[in-house]
């Protein structure tokens, strides 16, 4: 949500210089609760986790675990396919929701629902829809074609695709809303001027919308990559990592090791993802501090 954190603050210098000391004491006292939370529940766990993952033996064990290799590949597919499809649709739909129509306004209110409601009931709902015997999708396939539908979640490729679809369903409204805010900030006279010059819709997008939005679009894509890496629900609640542990991603794999009481292995599987995460964080920081 924190799209820009850059400092454009222009507050004048504090006028109460004579009281600075009492003020400072209060300032530190009021900041202390958050600092304590941050130290106890972010800094300490991160350092402790890295310390747990220090033994090289863990990485050998990971390397020899076929589930890990599969999870790493799945994670890359999930990120590359899921995020690009999601962001392109969000970019497209932000143009749709920018249209001034009463019914589109109503639709945008409904469109937010997947993001506003908790993931577990809706993902479980999708899971049952895909049930081969009782699910509504295979019932419909049967009534139209007379054939039995596929066993959706039993095929790893299909199951992973469905998990990506669930992820997109859940997070598309948020990114559409952010891109819509960006699109509405583009001055309207630019479009009017281009209309006078006889620009077609593609040219308007290519020469006005995209140049104004590309920074926001790339920032959103990077942030979405970090958050998608941490998306546990879409895969875990839909496939549980199955069939035969073939649809795990790094986030569910880490939790799987944790549940099996292999904490250092769990931490190692996360440290392995750092070469992917750290450049993202670096680019984010560079973008945000501009």
């Amino acid at each position, binding site marked *: 949500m924190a799209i820009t954190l850059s400092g454009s603050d222009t507050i004048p210098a504090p006028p109460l210089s004579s009281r600075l000391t009492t003020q400072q004491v209060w300032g530190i006292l009021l900041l202390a609760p958050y600092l304590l939370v941050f130290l106890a529940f972010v800094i300490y766990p991160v350092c402790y986790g890295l310390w747990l993952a220090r033994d090289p033996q863990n990485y050998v064990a990971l390397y020899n675990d076929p589930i890990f290799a599969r999870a790493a590949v799945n994670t890359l597919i999930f990120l590359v396919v899921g995020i690009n499809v999601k962001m392109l649709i969000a970019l497209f739909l932000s143009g749709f929701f920018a249209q001034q129509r009463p019914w589109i306004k109503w639709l945008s209110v409904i469109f937010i629902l997947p993001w506003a409601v908790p993931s*577990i*009931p809706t993902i479980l709902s999708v899971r049952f829809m895909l049930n081969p015997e009782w*699910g509504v999708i295979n019932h419909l396939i049967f009534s139209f074609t007379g054939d039995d539908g596929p066993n959706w979640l039993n095929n790893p490729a299909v199951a992973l695709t469905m998990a990506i679809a669930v992820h997109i369903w859940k997070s598309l409204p948020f990114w559409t809303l952010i891109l819509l805010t960006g699109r509405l900030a583009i001055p309207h006279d630019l479009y009017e001027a281009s209309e006078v010059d006889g620009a077609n819709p593609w040219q308007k997008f290519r020469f006005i919308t995209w140049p104004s939005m590309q920074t926001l679009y790339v920032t959103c894509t990077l942030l979405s990559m970090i958050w998608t890496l941490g998306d546990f629900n879409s895969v875990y609640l839909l496939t549980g990592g199955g069939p035969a542990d073939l649809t795990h991603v790094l986030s569910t794999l880490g939790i799987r090791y944790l549940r099996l009481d292999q904490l250092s292995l769990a931490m190692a599987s996360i440290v392995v993802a750092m070469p992917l995460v750290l450049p993202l964080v670096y680019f984010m920081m560079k973008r945000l501090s501009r």
Partner: protein
Amino acid sequence: MKLPTLKEVGTEAKLLLIGIPVFIWTMVPIYHMFLFAISPKEDAFSGKLWPDHPTLHNFHIVFYQEHYFLRDFWIQFWNSTVIALSAGALTLFIATAAAFSISRLRVPGGRWVMNLALFTYFIPAAFLAVPMYRTMGNYGLLNNHWSLILAMVTIASPYAIWVLKQASDKLPVELDEAATMDGATTLQLFRLVYVPLMMPSLVAIGTYAVLLAWNEYLYAFLLLSKDTNITLPVALGNFLAADDSPWELLMTTGFIYALPPAAIYYAFKRYMVGGLTAGAVKS
């Protein structure tokens, strides 16, 4: 009344061609959940798009805890409520104090602390959960509601501080000067000037933190495990452990669980959109 031109009809048709699939895509999982909630088991499992005998019987079973999986429904509902409200209140307290300190008192290093806090969001959620689980164990908080409350406060606070700081930067500095001139202490300034003026943002942030905690699954599932201790989403996940899960009851419970956040979201929408997206996009 002017008749629409052919071009206008064409544009409208193209928009509908996008709008209708968007509506169906959004509503299908939610409608399917609702359908199960009002269907007897036979109807739900026969793949009908509307039940032959719609009924509220499933709600009756849930509310009177008449199924093995639902024997602790009310206590789990209560756990979810307490945890969400506590996380909301605590986030609000911590974040307001921090934002006041950074923005109004301009504590040295305050901006730095805020940027550091936002780093929390650069750690993928499921990655932080692993060491967090162990940390809570070290603190002796596992299976204690405090573990989940504090975890949610940790995740909600950075964004809360950031939004509140943006909002408080907009308050004129003369207000503080005038109050101090009249002899107000820092604490009075906070209570009597700052908090009342920040109300709209505080409502937005409080709602945000409550929804975040209410909707959380992963941390709840890791940190709490006793049947009378867990929140509703964890109980829903536990339904899956059985081979013959009562799916119509699972969906009914899920529907009940999803209603409060949807209702709260729409009730506070006015605050949410203004308060939460403020400053999100720099033009």
